[in-house]
């Protein structure tokens, strides 16, 4: 199992676990980041900047720190 951090641009994974406290989970869930959801990294900003990700039809920017807390399993192709 890896984290979102290790996905490269264009790769997709399935959210397995949100490794953080309840409040944070709530905030992420509000934006559609929930267990079992398919997540795709569209691009990464330069200089270790944020990730541009897509869940369902929602596109978000998320920082490396938060990305490292999202455990994912590979998406079955």
């Amino acid at each position, binding site marked *: 199992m890896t984290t979102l951090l290790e996905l490269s641009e264009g790769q997709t994974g399935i959210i397995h676990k949100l490794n953080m406290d309840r409040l944070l989970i709530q905030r*992420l869930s*509000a934006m559609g*980041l929930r267990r079992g959801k398919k997540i795709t990294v569209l691009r990464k*900003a330069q200089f270790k900047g944020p990730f541009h990700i897509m869940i369902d039809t929602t596109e978000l*920017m998320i920082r490396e720190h*938060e990305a490292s807390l999202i455990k994912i399993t590979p998406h079955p192709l």
Partner: protein
Amino acid sequence: MKRIALLGMPNTGKSTLFNRLSGSSTRVGNWPGITVDLHAVKTLLGGHMVELVDLPGIYDLQGLSEDEKIVQSFINKHRIDLAIVVLCSAQIERQLSLLLQLQKLHIPCVLALNMHDEAKKMGIAINEKLLAKMLKMPAVKMSAKYGEGMPELLKVCAELINQKITTPVKKIKPLKTSDQVSNEKTIQHLIKASVKYPIQLNDKNTKKLDALFLDPYWGLPIFFVIVFSIFQFIFTLGKPIQDLMTQFFNYFRVDFLEPLFINHHGIFQSLLLDGLYLGVTTVAAFVPIIILFFLIMSVVEDSGYFSRAAFMMDAFMEKIGLDGRGFVMMLMGFGCNVPALMGTKIMRTKELRLLTMFVIPFSLCSARLQVFLFIITALFSAKYGPLVLFCLYLLSFFTIFISALIFKHQFKNKEPIIIELPPYRFPTMNHIIKRSMLEIKHFLTRATKFIIIGVLLVWALTHFPADVPIASELSYSGQLGKWLSPIFHPIGINEQLVIALIFGFIAKEIVIGALAVIYGVEGTALAHHLYTNVSQIQAISFMIFTLIYTPCLSTIATLKNESKNLSFVIYSVSWALLLAWVFSFIFYQTSLYFST
């Protein structure tokens, strides 16, 4: 007694609605089988006493989180006669699923379309009558925060609660995948029929634009070109309007007000003209810039570009405890600090917003630029002038970064920075205009009083005692200048310049005018007077202090409005004063050391 439950996803304003419905008489209830405390209240509705319960915010009836388990066991163990399902109108597409799940359990529901003002701001129009018909339940557009739609919500609740329940409420059962699919389809059907979104670029075009705007090499240059064009637009349009207004205010004063009060006592006339009138016109001078700023800002935000800019600048801003949106606001501050501060509203996390507001006043705004241009042309040759100005801009950036770095632990952001990158949209004219009007109303209603009081205070300082020349050494401001001279002497700022700084507290636009009053000469004569009386080192020290110490009264008033925290304002102004003094001191003393 009948029971009404408030249900909804987190951050939909459910608790705000509960507080509105319950007044202050909340009690913490104890429910058999429920492990946490839930807020509940008894209240009169439709002629009966009802019990109102605020359930935790959840995304899903099925989930396994603690809050979700609480709601599940509450629904399974306690009778609910009516559920008020609260949702955030702007996110209706994502939030209807919970409502459908509740409806399947045969719980009578009322749909509260909360934060409808926010949806309206985003150009989202919900046809609640059609939605209600399709869902077979009442739907009310409302705003718990501003109290809109409350009477109607209460009315439909009262009607429903008095009806006899025919179908018994079901227990929660696990959702099958087929149910989920059919729910999704229902939502899409509902949304398509009853919600109108602003014209949106389709997915393919959004992807194409993103490839351009977020390009690793071209993204940033494009961003800076866009910001530069915005500045050009605001100032090519705003400057003439501001000049016209100043002229008009001047004519109005000379041709109308002065003759009107000619027979009045000198002090009374001066209070009205140099005090009150100056205060009113100071406020008014900001109106065109704020309107123009928010016209442009709405376009940038609504189009979806704003969050793209934030995406590109975020890596850098993260290091100083801010985020990409803060960078955009900071840049806007180089035009005018006031709307830039108001624009930080988009940040939902408090600490991040405060830190951003803390550094914006260090942005070298156009008003300060005017002062610097006058002094620089008076004292420096065409060869060195631009260099001095450039260094002042560098210093402005430097003070922003140093302040953010020093205070980033104090205003430590505890929440994740997750920003939606919405599809690109065409902003609607209607919305853009409404937004600007709303912002200008906010500014005028909240800042006017504060600014006028400040102006009157400075007026009193410079016009009393009544028998001495205005703003002279003998006036209270002059005495204050003398009293402060031990502080200002080490940074090379003389007593007259201190009086100018006191004026500059109101607005930088009037510093030059104040110098004219203080020295008793105007225009080129004033420039010449400065040239012979103030050394270049003193002038630079004065400009450094002017840049940092405080932008203007309007900025301080806006800081107060937006933070709603007086100690934050005091803190921020004190830091600016301290930093201004330290930087001027370092510059002045080292320059003196090397020039002798």
